[in-house]
C-alpha cells in the first residue's frame, strides 16, 4: 500500500487510539459492555491494520511470533494463577473473595486480573491466527 499515502498517515494516527480504546474496554468490563474477549480482539485489530498497511514482515518485526506465544501462554497462566492464589489463600479455586481486604475488593481485583489474562491470550491468539493465514503464499518482500 505504498501508494496510499492517505491511508498510511491516517492509519498510523489511528492505531494508538485503537489500542487505547481496547484498554478502555478491557478495564471497564465490570461497569459496562466490555471485558477481555472484546478488548483482545480490538487490540489485535490494531495490528491487523498495521499489517494491511505495512505488510506482514513489518508487523512481525514489532510483534514477533515468539513474543506472541509467550503472551498467549502468559494470559492463560495469569487466569489460572489467580485461581491458584485463591487456593493458596485458603479458599476454593477462583474464589476472589480472599484476594482483597474485604470480599468486594477481592472480587474487583480478581475479575480485573482474570479478564486481563483473557485479553492477553485473545490478542495473541488472534494475531497468531492472522499471521498464520496472512503469511501463506507470501512472496519475498511486502504484500502490496
Amino acid at each position, binding site marked *: 500500500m505504498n501508494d496510499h499515502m492517505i491511508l498510511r498517515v491516517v492509519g498510523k494516527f489511528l492505531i494508538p487510539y485503537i489500542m487505547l480504546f481496547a484498554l478502555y474496554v478491557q478495564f471497564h468490563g465490570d461497569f459496562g459492555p466490555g471485558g477481555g474477549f472484546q478488548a483482545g480482539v480490538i487490540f489485535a485489530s490494531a495490528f491487523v491494520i498495521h499489517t494491511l498497511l505495512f505488510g506482514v514482515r513489518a508487523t512481525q518485526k514489532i510483534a514477533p511470533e515468539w513474543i506472541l506465544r*509467550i503472551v*498467549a501462554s502468559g494470559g492463560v497462566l495469569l487466569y489460572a494463577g489467580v485461581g491458584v492464589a485463591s487456593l493458596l489463600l485458603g479458599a476454593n479455586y477462583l474464589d476472589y473473595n480472599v484476594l482483597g481486604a474485604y470480599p468486594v475488593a477481592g472480587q474487583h481485583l480478581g475479575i480485573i486480573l482474570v479478564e486481563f489474562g483473557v485479553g492477553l491470550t485473545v490478542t495473541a491468539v488472534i494475531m497468531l491466527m492472522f499471521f498464520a493465514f496472512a503469511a501463506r503464499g507470501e512472496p519475498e518482500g511486502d504484500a502490496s
Partner: protein
Amino acid sequence: MLMHLPVLVVLAPLLAAPIVALMRGATWPWLLSTLVSWFALLCAVLLLIQVQAEGVIIYTMGGWEAPWGIEYRIDFANALLLVLITGLASVVMPYARLSVEQEVGAERSPMFYAALLLLSLGLCGMTATGDAFNVFVFLEISSLATYTLIAMGRDRRALTASFSYLVMGTIGGTFYLIGIGLLYVMTGTLNMADLAERLPAISDSSTVRTGFAFIVTGICLKLALFPLHLWLPNAYTYSPSAVTALLGATATKVAVYILIRFVFTIFGPEYSFGAEPLAEVLIPLAVIGLLSASTVSIGQPNIKRMLAYSSVAQIGYIVLGIAMGTAMGLTAALLHVFNHGLMKGALFMTLGAVMYRMGGTNLSDMQGLAKTMPLTFWAFVIGGLSLIGVPLTVGFVSKWHLILAAIELGWWPVVIVILAGSMLAVVYVGRVVEAGFFGEARDPTRREAPASLLIPVWILIFANIYFGIDTRLTVDIAEAAAAQLMAGGVVR
C-alpha cells in the same frame, strides 16, 4: 489440599499446558507432561478413596454455591472414570516419548504435549463437573485438542481425518449446546442437580422433549454410536499412535458417562425410558453397530483400522447395557467402560510399538511378529484374548455381567448378539494371531521394541489380567455407581 482434589485433577494439566507450549525440544515438554499426568492420577485415586468414604463430593468453584455457581460433583461413576482417564494418560505419557519423537518430530513436540495435556484436562473436566454448560466448555477444549492431535499424524490423510472429525464433532457439540439451551429456557438453570429437581414438573413440554433429543443425539455422535461413528475409523487410524491409545481408551467413554449422567441423573430413568423411546432407539442401533462394525473389522488390512471398528462395536455393548435401564445393565456398562479402556489402551499402544519398529500397522507388518518382536506380540495376544472375553481377563468380567443383565431381563436375542460379537472378535483377533505365529517376517533381524514402549504396554496388560481376576474393586465401584444412578435425582 485434600479438599481441593476435584479441581487439582483439572488444574495441574491446565497450568502445565501453557508452559509446555513455550518449551523447546522434545524432552522437557515430555518430562513435565509425564510428571503432571502422574500427579493428576494421584489426585484421582485419592478422590476415589474419598468418594468411597463420603459418597458424593461437592466442590464449588469460586465459592459460589450452586445453582448460581459452577460446582464439581464427584460420585462413584465419575470417580471411576477420572481414575481411568488419568491412569491411561499416566501410562501413555511415558510411552509417548519415543513414539512421538518418531511420528511427530521434535519440532512440533511442545505443541503436541500441550495439546495432549489439554485433551486430558478437557476429558477430566467433562467428567468432574456438575454443570451442564461446563460440560460443553470442556467438551470443546478436549475436541479442539483432539483435532490438533489427530492432524499431527504422519500420514497425509491425517489432515482430512481431522477435518472431518472437526465438522462432525462440532455438529455433535452444537446439538448438545442447543439441547442445553432448550433446557435452560424451560428451567432457568444449568446446574445438573438443579435440572434434575426442576425437570419432572415440566417433563411433558415439547421443548424439554426436543432438548432431550438434541442432547442425546449430540452425545451419541461423540460416543460414536452407529450410524454416527463415521468419523472414528479415520481419526483413530491416522493419528499418532500415542494419541490413538489415549483417545481410543477415553474419549468415547467420557461421552458415555455424559449420556449416563443425562439419562439417569438429570432426566431420570422413568422419564428417559418411559416417556421417551430411548431404549427403542438405542438398542437397534447398538446391535447393528456391534454386528456390522465387528464384521467390517474382519476384512481390514490395517490393524489400527480394524481395532477402530472394534471400538465402535464395543461401544455398542456399552450402549446396550445402558439401554437395559436396570442396575445390572448399568453396572455392566460402567464395568465395560473401564475394562475396555484398559484393553484398547494396551492394544493401541502395542500397535504403536509395531509402528515404531516396522513403520506401519498393516497385516503384512504383523507377519512373523511372534519371532521378531515376541514381547510386543504376546501383549497383543493377551489384549486380543481380553477383547474376545476369555476368562481371567477383564473382557470376560464385562461380558459376564452384560450377559447376566440380559438374562435377568429375559432378552435372549440380545444374549445371542453379544455372543455373536465375541465370535466375530475371535475371527478378527485370530487373523492377527495367526499372521504373527505363522507368517514370514519381512525383516527377520530380531528387533524388539524399546523398553520405554514396552513397559507401559505391559503395565496395562497386567492390569487387564489383574482386574480380570480380582474384580472386587471394579465391580464394587461399578455396582455402587449404578445404585447411585438408578436412585435418580441427586443427593445433596
